[in-house]
């Protein structure tokens, strides 16, 4: 059902939702940006609609709610192993179409790659519902249209602010009352989707093996400082490392946790004995880029990258991912002659 809500109405609707759900949404954090006097948009739990940043794309994605930066897996006490608890109360995550498409990629890795499901992802995923924030205009650096992830249908309700009102399309019956009871009127609401970005990409259908060792990657060995920011802001990056530690008081108590990992950062491939793959940052860039726009597709049939553009925005060396995709495409064409 579609509804039109005033600002007061939508805040009341949030109040009603909060009785059952936690709401995880992009929030403008004033003064908390990377540089002095700059802001950042990060996800956080909110109580009201007014706290939500509805206008701009978040700098960091929703990802923390499904794959936290650091998550306890087990606690160890003497000879006992106890599985770590988590907050299982239901959550509604407000996100844009690109990010809803990104969840499909994470589901693919954690729930459909190999015969085993990822238990820690699955138990979090089960308590989460996704709500759509409509996109009336393109964001900086985004190229979702060319990646085909500018639209999403898998959401429980959508929010589109326009002229002081909020237009809501509710898909899940259980949530209908929260909006219906606080609405000004019913209406046919179609959420807004971006149909044109400023940035365009062309992806190669096939990538020849010679390109894996091509000189086009040398540029990134010179420019990239392997800080890994691109991985940490990416809504589809899913790698993690399992780490054990013990509390130093007596050494008898400890835990096993998983922490987000970055294929750009040192240590990603290091094994006991000293063997390391991909020492140069150019090779790491190639590994990442080809995964996002080629290798993942070879396995699952669609590309991993959703074109949100966050990695371009966050890079301290001004390396553009979309630009790299276009360079890759041009180089493949050149090699094909």
């Amino acid at each position, binding site marked *: 059902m579609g509804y039109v809500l005033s600002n007061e109405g939508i805040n009341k609707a949030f109040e009603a939702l909060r009785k059952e759900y936690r709401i995880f949404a992009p929030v403008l954090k004033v003064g908390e940006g990377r540089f002095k006097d700059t802001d950042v948009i990060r996800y956080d739990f909110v109580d009201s609609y007014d706290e939500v940043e509805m206008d701009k794309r978040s700098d960091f994605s929703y990802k923390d709610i499904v794959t936290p930066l650091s998550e306890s897996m087990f606690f160890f006490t003497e000879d006992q192993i106890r599985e770590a608890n988590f907050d299982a109360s239901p959550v509604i995550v407000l996100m844009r179409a690109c990010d809803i498409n990104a969840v499909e990629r994470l589901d693919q*890795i954690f729930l459909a790659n*190999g015969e085993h*499901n990822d*238990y820690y992802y699955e138990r979090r995923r089960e308590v989460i519902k996704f709500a759509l924030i409509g996109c009336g205009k393109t964001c900086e650096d985004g190229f979702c249209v060319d990646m085909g992830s500018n639209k999403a249908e898998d959401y429980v309700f959508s929010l589109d602010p326009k002229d002081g009102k909020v237009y809501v399309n509710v898909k899940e019956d259980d949530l209908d009352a929260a909006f219906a009871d606080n609405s000004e009127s019913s209406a046919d609401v179609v959420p807004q989707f971006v149909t044109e970005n400023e940035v365009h990409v062309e992806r190669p259908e096939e990538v020849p093996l010679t390109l894996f060792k091509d000189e086009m990657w040398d540029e990134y060995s010179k420019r990239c400082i392997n800080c890994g920011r691109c991985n940490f802001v990416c809504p589809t990056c899913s790698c993690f490392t*399992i780490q054990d530690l013990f509390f130093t008081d007596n050494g008898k108590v400890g835990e096993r946790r998983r922490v987000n990992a970055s294929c750009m950062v040192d240590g*990603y491939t290091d094994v006991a*004995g000293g063997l390391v793959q991909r020492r140069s940052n150019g090779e790491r860039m190639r590994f990442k880029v080809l995964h996002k726009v080629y290798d993942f597709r*070879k396995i699952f049939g669609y590309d991993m990258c959703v074109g949100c553009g966050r990695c371009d925005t966050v890079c301290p060396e001004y390396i553009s991912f979309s630009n790299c995709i276009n360079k890759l495409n041009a180089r493949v064409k050149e090699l094909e002659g």
Partner: protein
Amino acid sequence: MAGKNEYTPMPSRLQDIIKQAENEWTFRFTYVGPVKPGQFFQVSIPKVGEAPISVSGIGEDFVDLTIRKVGKVTDYLFENFQAGDSLFIRGPYGNGFDVEEYAKGEMIIVAGGTAVSPIRGVVQYLCKTDHPQDTHLIAGFKNPDEIMFKPDFEEWKDLIDLTVTVDGAPEGYEGNVGLVTQYIPDIPIRDIESCKAIVVGPPPMIKFSIIELVKRGFNEEHIWISDSRKMSCGIGKCGHCRVNSKYICIDGPVFKYTEHRALVD
């Protein structure tokens, strides 16, 4: 509700520790369940960490994991555990070797050092067929002190065509001295077209052994190798072991050579 937590390590009693070489010991872990040669387990030591180790032997109520003391987890294992102690494992993971395929005809196995571990179960299987003499094993080690699985070689030498060699040895050593590759041209094979091969060991050894096999007219489609990478999860999630569109932990660690050569780290 979320399904089984595959990350939960299973308690397992160490039945025995067999010292193969100074820093390479076989740990016999209690395990009952399906497992194939070439698969691996995560040895899991709470508060220390996990290490993926390939299966070197399979018994009714145990699996052997032959481990080199080379890092945080393995150092701790060597220094703190005795037979009878209990620790944790999870697995088995990976595809493993398809032993029935290899039992159909003539078979060459070239293995270097610790890599004898994953093929030990294959050889044990082939020894039980009605034509063990069709199995040709070349096992190479750095020096006589590092020769592992000596009791196995004693058992196999009259059943299969076995060559144990070392890269170098002190004067007076009576065994074979020389790289594994120099023995490949002389392996007696009746039908090179249908013969199959497994090559496992350090990457340069694999590369040059395959060159020798191909020189003999070997069909490249008939060669298998086993690979390894850094792994955290072992079940296709953590991403560390991925190479191109393959995950070593779930698509491997055993690969057809023709498939594996298209992978670039």
